[in-house]
């Protein structure tokens, strides 16, 4: 597991799934349909991503799929870093 994915999983588990071991959280588990992350949770994830990875979150690009799974969040972080690097 790469470092970014590890950090994302640790955050999700700590904030939203305190009874679940990190290793049990699958990269493709649907956090939204599964009821793990609600509307306030989404805002919390956005704020954490900004702080943790020092990335700006462009809300014109945001949709629910950006935060549906750990894998999607990781892809979003990678994309944001690439954009920041290109600028």
């Amino acid at each position: 597991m790469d470092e970014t994915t590890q950090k994302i999983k640790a955050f999700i588990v700590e904030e939203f799934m305190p009874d679940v071991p990190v290793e049990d959280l699958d990269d493709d588990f649907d956090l939204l349909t599964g009821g793990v992350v609600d509307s306030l949770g989404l805002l919390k994830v956005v704020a954490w991503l900004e702080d943790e990875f020092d990335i700006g979150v462009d809300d014109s690009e945001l949709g629910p799929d950006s935060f549906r799974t750990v894998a999607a969040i990781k892809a979003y972080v990678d994309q944001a870093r690439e954009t920041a690097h290109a600028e």
Partner: protein
Amino acid sequence: MALTAPTGEWTDEQKSLRKSLSQHFEALNAGHLEDDAANRFNRDKWQLIRDSGVIRIPFAEQWGGLGHDVLTLVYVLENLGYGCRDTGLLFALATQVVSAAIPLQKFGSDDLKDRYLSRLIDGEIISAHAISEPNAGSDATAMITTATEDGDEYILDGKKIWITSGPLADIITVYAKTGTAGGAAGITAFLVPTDTSGFHVGEPIEKLGLNTCPFCELEFRDCRVPKENMLGKPGAGFFILEHVMNYEILCIFMMMVGEMEERMERCIKWAKTRQAFGASIGSNQYVAGKIVDMKIGLENSRKHLYDTARRFNRGRSVTTEISMAKLITSEANVASALSAIQIFGARGYTREYGLEKGLRDAIGAPIYSGTNETQRVRIASMLGL
């Protein structure tokens, strides 16, 4: 007196823009108590707002905007709040800026912008947004109005309530559930002209304050909207709504800071001249203390709003900051309005002085834009509670 400049960071252009609104204050205030008593939206004053160019401030020049950022916008609006006593009109203005034009500029297609954006920021067409429902207020994700995909269209069905400027609006941003996804993931935003078949606008709702800005209910029955009227992606409505609410709070509550400053100045003037027991009432520490608290409340509000606006301007998340700024300002404004009435005594209790209207207008603020209770829940959640 003149409104206090918050810091020395402003350019001459920003200062000039802010000052330019002062020429309209007298006309904007003419007859505002009568308009309030008659629950009347004044079209002549709307024309003044249009002529002032204030709606154009945060929009791109290619659409007729002035190309400024949100920080400039709130800096200018603070002065408008200071000089204009028609709070309902200012509420309609903020709604015009944030409800359709802001999300259209950021999330809309070029085709949609071509059709509506220039006319929205001119004020030629009036806009509103439809979020709350009879059983879903500050908890917007509990909405049950649906948008069902059907070929090249979405079909809207449901009811909305507390629609600011609803009876006036030509176009409304409607937030509705799409698909089966629950919570935040299932909300999509659509720009809907009010003459669309199946779109029903209710009668104005009588309320305590903000009487020059009408509210109403809306109902959608088999209301068909072309897919191209969608803002952003399917399911992105929650993020659009967050963006819009950040703008809304910054605009409305910065005007409130201006209002608080003007009210405090009136109280200082009155406290210096009104005599009781052989001295000015301002020399009475109980009265002076109320005015000191008014000053602390307005400066606290100003600081939080400008700090939040700067952070928002840099594209950073303001979830906690915006809730704190909204809470602090709305509660400070109610306290300020109550203190002003008390300081003016029986005169403050009359309609003639306009201070009772200030209180009636202020009481809505802890409720709209997400109740203060909900804002506290948001802050608690961000703290991990």
